[in-house]
């Protein structure tokens, strides 16, 4: 055993320092002349100078001006800025013949102030006990002259060579119930058998103890034990002090519950955010689905004047385009936009007269010139919108008859000057038209259609996009098959209503 009768003052100082540092406190004690008696914790980390006992420090600690000598037991100075620019809170405790001062950093709040106040009081009590205890009372227990560790809710143990531990203090009431076995002996305790958590921690502790010159201490982090039906949080601390392997078991109490409260609040906030985000995502999807439905119904109604176009055709066009976009690495939102925008590619046909649009035979040159206006008409309909979706639809309207070699219309754009969305739709529009029957032509087998389209590689179509399209042939065919029938009675209904209205219109 190392401590047979009370702790040397240096031990007390060491333990105090460990405790103070772990709680981000520092303290110093001065007499009524401003002379430093003692200090602990990391004063320098709080921006205080490196004082030495006996030094008069009032000139460095201007925040004490007017407070000393103290007229009350306790004073509190909030948010003082030190010369080093640190913001500190200061707690002053009058200890009759000297003054204890506790410093707390600016991250404090009301709970921390309370904690600081409590720590200050504990230190005062501790010091009073130190002064009051002058006699060692042998009682068969290793015993200090004050209940130091009890006041800190700690049990102090020193490691024996055989793996057991010797207790350095009488068992406090707190540990009597948490660790009843510790009352049976003070010499050969095995906290690792009682607490599996400690057994695990001792692996790390032994690493620290191996190196006698290593002043480092390690903390286990909190663990929870049952104490007469309620939970109590503990933490183990291991350190090596002058060759002695010390293990402290600490009841965390307020500090733990405070941290747990913060964590609870933080996590509940995160959970709430997740719920809200999920709800926003869900509602966005619903809105997007409604937008898509409205767009499809209107486009279908407009296109219904053109006997070649059907509701299923415009749906397929969107799906083909989305498939290509995804394989180009577009994000989900952009791929979704082209699915909705692509069906609007021919919306400009609404401005083409019936006798041209519905003409069963070949168009004359002048008729074709009028027909070629539909991309610009569509673009005008969709212009001046802030919506990225509508802007993309406009690009598609305007560019889906442009050709890679510049021979298309309306502007004869070439290559990448044609927006990519329009280049995609140019491919899938031709593909879908080829493989489906129209009143003026039979359907073409898929392979034959693709062979035909490949003749336009680098002429009509963007070569790289066409290659990708060919790679996706099977999935394209699946879409074509899945949506091969005039699906969506709802859409066709919308189209027929539009037609009825249109037929009632007087012919000019």
């Amino acid at each position, binding site marked *: 055993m190392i401590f047979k009768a009370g702790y040397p003052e240096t031990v007390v100082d060491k333990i105090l320092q460990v405790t103070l540092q772990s709680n981000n406190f520092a303290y110093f004690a001065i007499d009524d002349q401003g002379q430093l008696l003692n200090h602990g914790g990391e004063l320098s980390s709080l921006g205080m100078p490196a004082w030495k006992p006996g030094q008069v420090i009032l000139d460095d600690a201007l925040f004490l001006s007017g407070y000393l000598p103290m007229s009350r037991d306790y004073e509190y100075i909030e948010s003082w800025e030190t010369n080093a620019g640190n913001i500190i809170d200061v707690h002053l405790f009058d200890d009759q013949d000297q003054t204890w001062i506790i410093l707390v950093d600016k991250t404090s709040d009301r709970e921390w102030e309370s904690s600081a106040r409590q720590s200050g009081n504990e230190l005062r009590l501790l010091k009073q006990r130190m002064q009051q205890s002058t006699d060692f009372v042998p009682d068969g227990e290793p015993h200090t002259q004050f209940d130091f560790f009890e006041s800190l809710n700690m049990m102090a143990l020193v490691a024996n060579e055989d793996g057991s531990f010797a207790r350095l203090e009488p068992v406090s009431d707190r540990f009597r119930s948490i660790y009843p076995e510790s009352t049976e002996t003070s010499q050969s305790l095995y906290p690792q058998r009682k*607490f*599996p*958590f400690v057994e*695990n*921690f001792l*692996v*790390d502790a032994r690493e620290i103890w191996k190196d006698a010159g290593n002043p480092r201490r390690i903390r286990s*982090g*909190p*663990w*929870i034990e049952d104490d007469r039906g309620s*939970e109590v*949080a503990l*933490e183990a601390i291991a350190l090596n002090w002058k060759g002695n392997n010390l293990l402290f078991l600490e009841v965390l109490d307020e500090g*733990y519950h405070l*941290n*747990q409260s913060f*964590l*609870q609040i*933080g*996590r*509940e906030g*995160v*959970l709430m955010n*997740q719920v809200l985000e*999920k709800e926003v995502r869900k509602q966005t999807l619903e809105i997007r689905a409604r937008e898509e439905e409205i767009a499809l119904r209107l486009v279908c109604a407009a296109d219904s004047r053109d006997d070649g176009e059907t509701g299923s055709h415009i749906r397929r066009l969107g799906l083909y385009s989305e498939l290509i976009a995804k394989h180009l690495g577009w994000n989900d939102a952009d791929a979704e936009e082209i699915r909705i925008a692509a069906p609007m590619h021919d919306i400009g046909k609404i401005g083409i007269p019936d006798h041209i649009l519905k003409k069963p035979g070949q168009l004359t040159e002048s008729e074709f010139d009028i027909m070629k206006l539909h991309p610009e008409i569509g673009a005008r309909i969709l212009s001046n919108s802030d919506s990225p979706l509508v802007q993309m639809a406009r690009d598609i309207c305007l560019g889906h008859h442009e050709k890679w070699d510049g021979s298309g219309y309306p502007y004869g754009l070439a290559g990448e000057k044609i927006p990519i969305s329009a280049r995609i739709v140019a491919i899938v529009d031709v593909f879908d038209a080829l493989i489906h029957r129209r009143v003026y032509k039979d359907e073409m087998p898929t392979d034959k259609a693709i062979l035909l389209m490949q003749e336009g590689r680098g002429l009509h179509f963007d070569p790289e996009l066409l290659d990708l399209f060919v790679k996706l042939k099977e999935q394209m065919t699946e879409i074509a098959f899945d949506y091969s029938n005039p699906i969506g009675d709802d859409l066709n209904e919308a189209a027929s209503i539009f037609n009825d209205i249109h037929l009632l219109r007087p012919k000019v």
Partner: protein
Amino acid sequence: MSKFKVCMLGAFAVGKTSLVQRYVHSIFSEKYQTTLGVKIDQKSLHLGDKTLEMILWDLAGEDEFINVRDSYLRGSSGGVLVADGTRAETLDIAFQLRDRLFAEVGQVPLILVINKSDLRDQWTIDTAQFEQLREDGWQVLETSARDDSNVEAAFRALATRLLAMNSS
């Protein structure tokens, strides 16, 4: 009697503590109470003619506030990976913790538990991937600590694997 250290691993609020409480103490609390630190419980169970004791380490959930200390995983014989069916992202966190467990103790028996099956209508997790996981040899169970659904089965499934590992 064989003793096995088993870690409960998963993101925060997936129900690790609730599963342990349900399994060990047959209780369930509706209130979410975050775990800070480690809570250790023990449970003995009989499998055929064998008895084993599981030392269940209920670790604080992993998130931006708290990291599971690797030292807590030391000496683990197995683990219960817990994900929340209503929060798909918790499955990724469970797998990240699996990797850390394997790095610490090697390949030990695990089961994957998708908790909160009582809220199945709110699940965002893609259950189709369970089939792939099962094909890869994972034991995947859908549990509810609230309804006490599959909780015992999950721990017994792990116990069976632990015993099999122990005897091999």
